[in-house]
């Protein structure tokens, strides 16, 4: 089954594009299990990011994606789960 993989690099690219990046945070570091709040992203930044992911990957994320998935690892997994489901 061909899989379109969504990686943490894709996530940080889209986060930066849609919401900018906190100058005090190194997004290229080990951030997989860091809460988005600590990375400088509030819920609206994540809402914007989810919108950009949906458009780029042609998927629809659940409304509670932003509140349910509080770390990059959880978000990447949620997006990949949706990508698998739609293939």
């Amino acid at each position, binding site marked *: 089954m061909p899989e379109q993989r969504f990686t943490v690099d894709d996530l940080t690219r889209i986060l930066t594009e849609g919401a900018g990046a906190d100058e005090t945070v190194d997004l290229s570091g080990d951030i997989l299990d860091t809460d988005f709040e600590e990375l*400088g992203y509030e819920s609206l930044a994540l809402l914007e990011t989810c919108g950009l992911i*949906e458009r780029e990957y042609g998927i629809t994320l659940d409304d509670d994606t932003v509140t349910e998935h509080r770390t990059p690892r959880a978000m990447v997994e949620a997006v990949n789960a949706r990508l698998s489901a739609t293939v």
Partner: protein
Amino acid sequence: MTTGVTTSAKPKVVVTGIGAAAPNGVGTHDYWSATRVGRNAIGRVTRFDPTPYPARLAGEITGFTAADHLPSRLLPQTDRMTRIALAAADWALTDAKADPASFDAYEMGVITASSSGGFEFGQNELRKLWSMGSQHVSAYQSFAWFYAVNSGQISIRNGMKGPSGVVVSDQAGGLDALAQARRQIRKGTPLILSGSIDAPICPWGWVAQLAGGRLSTVEDPERAFVPFDPDAAGHVPGEGGAILVMEDAERAVERGARAYGELAGYGATFDPAPGSGREPGLRRAAELAMADAGVAADEVDVVFADAAGVPELDRVEAEVITGLFGPRGVPVTAPKTMIGRLCSGAAPLDVATALLAIEEGLIPPTTNTSPDPGLGLDLVLHQPRPASVRTALVLARGHGGFNSAVVVRGTD
């Protein structure tokens, strides 16, 4: 003029910091350097192609690069007016040597004025909505267009949780915001950032202003906005304004701050219904402000005029000034002739300019205008006028009947 007014023991409120951003100068130093010598900055609109519109001139801010002043997190979520306002707030705090971290969060508030909110941001998102669909609309549209957004973003950036809000009464709002800040300081909040920055030079903002019916369609930048001139035919819009640090005078002294001057008096009125035949409210607003400050007409050293550039409104304002001070009885100036009318940003910038005039002892000129001598105004024309300035009256009118006046007074 009411006489025998007793000044009550209300706490003094002073301005300790100025952050100015105007078409002829970004930052207080550059703005004053340009304004004191009458440097014009009205030109053909460059932020969009104005060819299809009847009005094509504006006072545009050039040389402001938001990324030089703001973190990248703020850029996707801010309209141009908010970016300029955030930078101006930083400059004002630096000028006041007021470090927000040294105050309790609830000891600081933000009260700005706005005429239109974030027009350009809103326009871009509406364009995406109708051309690409709702999925393409930024989540930040939820607040980035909103009237109160400058207050909100300044509050968040500087950790200010005291009394905050926004006043919307067009150009008069710029003074109404300062008055509301003074009210809150007198109720016990030591420091409030106040003033206004507006930046509606985009097609949507343009058609909204055209609908007001007061934009000049004259093509010559030196003849398009000529208040009190027999050829006055409307105004040129501009962008910018000023953010001021306002403080309780005693608290300012305690922390060793220097004050430009005091917001000594304020008055606001609303015009009677059109066709009622009753007198417009501007005169009463000026009288209220002077009474509130406890100053008599002969104590006012300069008037910063609203300068509508519409013959009937110019006549009304000239009658108010000559009625209060006598024919050619007080120097009058309108530095906004250099830069256009900045919506609600205009009056806080005039207050800043009045304070800088007090500081230097120099009244900046009114440019471009050749006033009708029959109006009886002593307009400071073409060249700055050295003068001992201690007390200034600033007038502002908003579309739809708003009149506001402020008296600022130098500290001794």
